[in-house]
């Protein structure tokens, strides 16, 4: 089974799915489920036996552990999300195109991960961009798609510029060779690094390029947001890992000044990651729309991942990789629960929802587990990655960045709790009395994803060992050490099953107390709630209204970077209008005048 055959099969199947969907929507959607599951199974079974042997011309692939790791993450997210597709077919304007682009973007991501040379990577990178870009406008916003494309392409073009710059100097497109050869010249290496890193930044959603994330993820169709947020942003992480470790950037910048044990360039870039954490967290706390909130949370998590990668420490990279895994699964799960709620109620705005726990209890539990992972609390995977990252930061002594990371962690608890308490807990609205639990086709993937999160939180060793394998493949000298159940860190060990055991013990104690204690009596809420008063504006009394108002007041007057980009775009438009007004008029006199003026200038210029 070669990568090329898998990719070609996916592309062909995506076109086939288009036609199948034209015949019957549901069958087409189920085809996507089958195809993604099949791909996942193939990858799991083949493991290392996958080969990149076959190739067409410059389309060459190479199999590395890093690529396999990312592909598995992507495939898990895609296949679980695919289960939701059949339910969304009637809500989308172009179901055939949706299914086709769904599979095409998957093919693109696999191509990116396994690319052997930069041209192939760029081709598939762009395929991912345009495949996902056309799905976004099926949702709520058209400009979101254009903004996504424009920012993503800005990154792609700096990436392309760097690729060709490296080729012009070193004569090869192959990723490993080209990056290794760049070690020779520090200036070119740093320039290429920054240009390529821009592409990674923009894809990950690091400040100041994060503005497309809430627009795109928040407004995309509900079934595609998990893929955008859990899957596609990780492409940026992949690129960042490649260029940080293969250059490697720490060797190239050896001669620069060192701050907190890292070269100053790296530290400045890490500051950007730290700022994204703060910005993402603060903006997420403000949001009313559950999907935009989760999108900002992706911004913040992108910051964690970036810091982990740039630190170039074996614990940090391991932490970053596990965080990628954990965040992909958790974020996808959270988006899926919101999608399930939206499927049943028709809205994702938290101020219009409430009390869903009574009607959708399983969805509630799934969401709860996802946010426990996102907040970094044991026994979920998120805790493992946060522990590793904090270890690495503390070891280096970078307390500023560690502070922002702590702030982000706590803040994440604030914002993930809001949908939980507002959406699921709280009062059930009268119009939602007849809402049923999410259909079984939706429950299965959500439970599977929660199961994965829980499993790797309790027994992370297989995961950590795989990251060790990736690190050695990437050329690290030291790799993270694990023995049977313990992960060894620099300042202490992490014994995950022990922690889980303690947690479970505490949970059982609480459960026993709950069962023994007298039950509370259920009272209907609406009769006593208003105490006889008439509510003129019920929305003000909603549990989610101004939920964190005191905290939000602290940063109410924050500067808005969206305005900066909007102003830039407006300037370009004005320039265009000016040119149209001056040069393109319907009266021939003006045209002839410009011709004569130009000829005068040319003749004069030539004379000189």
């Amino acid at each position: 089974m070669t990568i090329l055959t898998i990719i070609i099969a996916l592309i062909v199947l995506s076109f086939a799915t288009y036609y199948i969907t034209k015949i019957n929507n549901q069958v087409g959607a189920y085809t996507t489920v089958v195809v993604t599951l099949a791909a996942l199974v193939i990858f799991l079974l083949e493991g290392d036996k996958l080969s990149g042997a076959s190739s067409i011309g410059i389309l060459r692939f190479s199999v590395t552990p890093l690529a396999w790791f990312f592909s598995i993450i992507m495939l898990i997210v895609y296949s679980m999300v695919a289960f939701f597709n059949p339910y969304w077919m009637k809500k989308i304007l172009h179901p055939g195109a949706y299914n086709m682009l769904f599979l095409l973007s998957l093919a693109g991501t696999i191509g990116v991960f396994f690319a052997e040379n930069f041209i192939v990577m760029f081709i598939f990178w762009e395929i991912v961009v345009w495949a996902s870009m056309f799905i976004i406008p099926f949702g709520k916003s058209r400009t979101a798609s254009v903004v996504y494309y424009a920012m993503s392409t800005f990154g792609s073009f700096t990436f392309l510029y760097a690729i060709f710059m490296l080729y012009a100097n070193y004569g090869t497109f192959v990723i490993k060779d080209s990056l290794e050869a760049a070690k020779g010249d520090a200036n070119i290496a740093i320039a290429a690094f920054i240009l390529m890193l821009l592409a990674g930044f923009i894809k990950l959603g690091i400040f100041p390029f994060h503005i497309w994330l809430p627009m795109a993820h928040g407004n995309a169709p509900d079934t595609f947001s998990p893929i955008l947020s859990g899957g596609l942003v990780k492409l940026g992480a992949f690129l960042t890992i490649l260029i940080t470790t293969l250059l490697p950037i720490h060797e190239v910048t050896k001669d620069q000044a060192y701050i907190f044990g890292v070269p100053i360039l790296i530290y400045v870039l890490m500051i950007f990651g730290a700022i994204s954490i703060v910005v993402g967290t603060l903006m997420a706390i403000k949001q009313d729309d559950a999907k935009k909130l989760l999108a900002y949370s992706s911004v913040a998590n992108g910051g964690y991942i970036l810091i982990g990668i740039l630190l170039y420490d074996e614990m940090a990279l391991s932490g970053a990789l596990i965080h990628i895994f954990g965040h992909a699964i958790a974020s996808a799960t959270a988006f899926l629960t919101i999608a399930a709620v939206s499927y049943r109620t028709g809205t994702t705005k938290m101020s219009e929802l409430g009390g869903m726990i009574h009607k959708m209890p399983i969805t509630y539990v799934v969401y709860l587990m996802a946010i426990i992972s996102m907040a970094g609390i044991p026994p979920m995977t998120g805790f493992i990655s946060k522990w590793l990252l904090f270890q690495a930061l503390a070891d280096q002594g970078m307390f500023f960045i560690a502070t922002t990371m702590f702030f982000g962690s706590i803040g994440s608890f604030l914002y993930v709790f809001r949908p939980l308490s507002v959406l699921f807990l709280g009062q059930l609205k009268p119009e939602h009395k007849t809402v049923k639990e999410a259909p079984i086709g939706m429950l299965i993937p959500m439970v599977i994803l929660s199961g994965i999160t829980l499993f790797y939180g309790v027994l992370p060793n297989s995961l950590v060992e795989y990251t060790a394998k990736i690190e050695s493949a990437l050329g690290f000298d030291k790799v993270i050490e694990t023995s049977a159940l313990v992960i060894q860190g620099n300042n202490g060990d992490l014994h995950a099953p022990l922690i889980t055991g303690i947690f479970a013990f505490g949970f059982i104690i609480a459960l026993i107390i709950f069962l023994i204690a007298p039950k509370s009596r259920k009272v209907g809420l609406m009769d006593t709630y208003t105490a006889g008063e008439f509510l003129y504006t019920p929305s003000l009394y909603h549990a989610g209204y101004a939920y964190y108002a005191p905290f939000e007041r602290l940063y109410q007057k924050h500067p808005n970077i969206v305005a900066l980009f909007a102003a830039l775009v407006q300037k370009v438009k004005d320039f265009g209008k000016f040119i149209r007004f001056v040069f393109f008029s319907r009266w021939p006199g003006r045209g002839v005048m410009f011709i004569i003026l130009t000829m005068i200038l040319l003749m004069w210029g030539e004379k000189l």
Partner: protein
Amino acid sequence: MKKLVAVLLVGLMLLLLFINMFDGSLEFNKMDLADVDGNYYAKNPIVSNMVTSVVVDYRSFDTLGEVTVLFVSSLGVAFMLGGLTTRIKFKHDDSFFLRIGVKVLFPIIVIVGVFMFVHGHLTPGGGFPGGALIGGAMLFKYISDSKYRAKISAFKVLEGTMGSIYVLLGIVGILVGNYFLQNILDIGELGNLISGGLIPIIYVLIGLKVGSELTGIFDHFMNEEV
């Protein structure tokens, strides 16, 4: 104000142009006169009118192009003004003397025109001026008589036929000789009426074609909407 600026700009451009042309940088005399193409044309004329030998023999393809330009212009006029059928009413009445006078002058002008293009290879003139004279004669008829309409369909047939014959002569050149528009007839003596091979024939074709085209254009312009 606008006119002043326009005149100034055009004047400036022409000034720059002329300065550049006449300050020696264009090196008009750089070429050895013997190498200039025109020298060859001057030394090897096919007929006694040197201009004709260049226009209709050496560069016959260009002349075919020019003829086509005129043809497409007349097609354009026909396209834009083609639907109109009634003659424009002049502001003055027809003058008896003008009408009769033109009837006398008309054949003379036509004969002069025909002479010009038949003798195009011997005397200055040729197909284009000759045809223009014929067109001018037709214009006289239109001006003199407010009810006059030439038989446009006949002229169109003449125009089409002449053009087609020109092209067909060229194609015959491929079949009989080896090249398009090759001069396949005998060149004859320099200075004779029957000399120069195809050249007088082509000039006759061109003269008639131009005449009919101009007539057609005048006819279209002399019409108006009802």
